[in-house]
């Protein structure tokens, strides 16, 4: 048996590897989108795939997001498994009618006769200095649409595992890929990729006793950093990485909060009408008598995504997270 060296890989490479393995294993898998062919996608996630699998399997489409997703619906109706790339979060909006009225509902409206195994990959979130319309956190729209699964990786290994699970799913899955983690590196062995976990399980990234930071995607590394910094204040923070927003892993989240008694939800998306409100409500419903303080939210401001030179003021950072932790009514304990 040969052992392969574990090398650093980026999230973008792991995503590309997931696509490649899926294309190789299942002839019904098709990758389609804008610039996914010769260019390899604007983030190079599909690098080399068109060459390896041909243009019929990895297709540069015309520039029309509703058309891309709409034709993917028809392809799925005929037994294919399309993986659609939306070039950026804000450019997925033209496809919303197809997504909401058809992709999310087709199984339901046909009583299960026409499931749509479609994966929609959406690079999302800010922090990359993108100009207007390149940094939206659009997860709340997807979460509010019954019939869709919504996942978002925070690590290189999860990027591979979640994308494989999404493609294997018989339901439509929106894979939200945190743009600013595309180039994040991890020791990851591409020749022995992680087992594909079923969609819907959160994971405790860091054990702690004082309070739980509930987060996902691009905010996971920020929360881990905050947890390290919090040690100086005497707080031992637990960090839960949701990984899957739909289905939502109430069990893991509630178990953590019951252990720590305090919780802060952290995300880039705006707070008002954002995922944090739903999460805080779910935690409160399940853990009310374990809570020492109200569940707090650290979110992006309720503003259109700011210009790049101002984005650092908008994005939840370590200080803002620690400020929230400080407001968790510690004085009541003494």
């Amino acid at each position, binding site marked *: 048996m040969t052992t392969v060296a574990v090398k650093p890989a980026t999230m973008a490479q792991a995503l590309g590897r997931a696509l490649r393995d899926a294309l190789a294993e299942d002839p019904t898998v*098709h990758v389609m989108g804008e610039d996914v062919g010769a260019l390899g996608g604007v983030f190079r996630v599909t690098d080399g795939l068109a060459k390896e699998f041909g243009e*019929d399997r990895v297709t540069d*489409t*015309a520039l*029309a997001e*509703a*058309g891309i*997703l*709409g*034709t*993917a*619906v*028809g*392809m*799925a*109706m*005929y*037994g*294919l498994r*399309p993986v659609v790339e939306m070039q950026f979060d804000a450019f997925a909006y*033209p496809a919303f*009618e*197809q997504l909401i*009225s*058809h992709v999310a*509902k*087709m*199984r*339901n*409206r*046909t*009583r*299960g*006769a*026409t*499931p749509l195994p479609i994966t929609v990959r959406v690079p999302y979130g800010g922090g990359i200095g993108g100009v207007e319309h390149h940094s939206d956190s659009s997860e709340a729209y997807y979460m509010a649409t*019954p*019939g869709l*699964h919504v996942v978002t990786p925070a690590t290189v290994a999860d990027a591979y595992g979640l994308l494989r699970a999404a493609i294997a*799913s*018989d*339901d439509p899955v929106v894979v939200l890929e945190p743009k600013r983690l595309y180039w994040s590196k991890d020791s990851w062995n591409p020749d022995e990729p992680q087992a594909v976990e079923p969609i*819907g399980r959160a994971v405790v990234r860091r054990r702690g006793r004082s309070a739980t930071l509930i987060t996902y995607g691009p905010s996971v590394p920020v929360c881990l950093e905050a947890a390290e910094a919090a040690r100086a204040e005497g707080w031992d923070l637990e960090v839960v990485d949701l990984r899957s927003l*739909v*289905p*939502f892993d*109430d*069990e893991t989240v*509630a*178990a953590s909060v019951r252990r720590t008694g305090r919780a802060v939800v952290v995300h880039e998306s705006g707070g008002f009408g954002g995922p944090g409100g739903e999460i805080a409500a779910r935690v409160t*419903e*399940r*853990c*009310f*008598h*374990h809570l020492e303080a109200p569940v707090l939210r650290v979110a992006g401001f309720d503003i259109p995504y700011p210009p790049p030179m101002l984005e650092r003021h908008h994005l939840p950072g370590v200080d803002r997270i620690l400020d929230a932790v400080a407001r968790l009514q510690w004085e009541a304990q003494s």
Partner: protein
Amino acid sequence: MTVMEQRGAYRPTPPPAWQPRTDPAPLLPDALPHRVLGTAAADRADPDLLRRLYAELVRGRRYNAQATALTKQGRLAVYPSSTGQEACEVAAALVLEERDWLFPSYRDTLSAVARGLDPVQALTLLRGDWHTGYDPNEHRVAPLCTPLATQLPHAVGLAHAARLKGDDVVALALVGDGGTSEGDFHEALNFAAVWRAPVVFLVQNNGFAISVPLAKQTAAPSLAHKAVGYGMPGRLVDGNDAAAVHEVLGEAIAHARAGGGPTLVEAVTYRMEAHTNADDDKRYRADAEVEAWRAHDPIALLERELTERGLLDEDGIRAVREDAEAMAADLRERMNQDPVLDPMDLFAHVYARPTTQLQEQEAQLRAELDAEIRHHEDEPDHRDEPDHRDGPDHRDGPEVNAR
């Protein structure tokens, strides 16, 4: 020195990247809608096909009338009738092979029934017991589609997928004149043309999108002309001439099968009834206009052709009408039975496996239904039951105040 002389050395050449793509001339539609009935072309038409079309037209009109009556009786929530457009509906269904796919719009229940769908199952959307009451794969009829033009890219994708798999399958997609203004119409035609997908688009131009006439919908010379911009042929056909619609669609389908790519067909027809039973068409159109179209009725046109050529006699007509009556009687009888509904179906097909959240909500509804049943059984004890239950997290057990 004249300007021309000054420019003597200048020879205009196109920009380096420019080259002609396709010659638009062969893509252009004819000046007038294609007709068969009452013309010399009718002599070439297959008499059996004409008789089949006739029988289906009569059945179709009867179906529309019966469905409209059922709506007035409260058996259907709404019915968008295709009365006056039966030639398009029927020809679209009959022109397809078994293996082909039909993508109907919300007005095209009739085309689905003419393709062989159970007449009651085709109406569940409008009765309201389930959105799509049939398995689309059984007759290869996509769900009746209400968001206008959104079914068109599905037809393109399916046709494209079939071609990738090497299957000889054509998709026929139906859309209204109003639907041609939607972005999905544009995107579907563009994708179809780029991919040379074996798909045919049939626009039923019935003059109106609810109340809005075509003049407010487009400034194009005709809807068929739009095809040229995508690089596909456009065909114009008399939408009340069933033989002509069948012929034009047949040619477009043969073209698609042979690898020639998509065609856009505009059928000029007229919506003889209001948009739906809930509409008042007196607000936006004159009776005289409707009457003018009555003289160009699709059934009368075909009946005259058949009788004048001795292909149909009084007995034949009577037999067709009796068959249509029998269909209507059966539809009436079956639609007058209340559908059996299971509220738990609400959760059955949201995902392949219900999420824990849905399982909780399912349990909640189940409990509500059980309480309803107990209530109906008139057990006073149960009436006073408090209606709050344990915390929703059944898996973890209810939250306990135990610290």
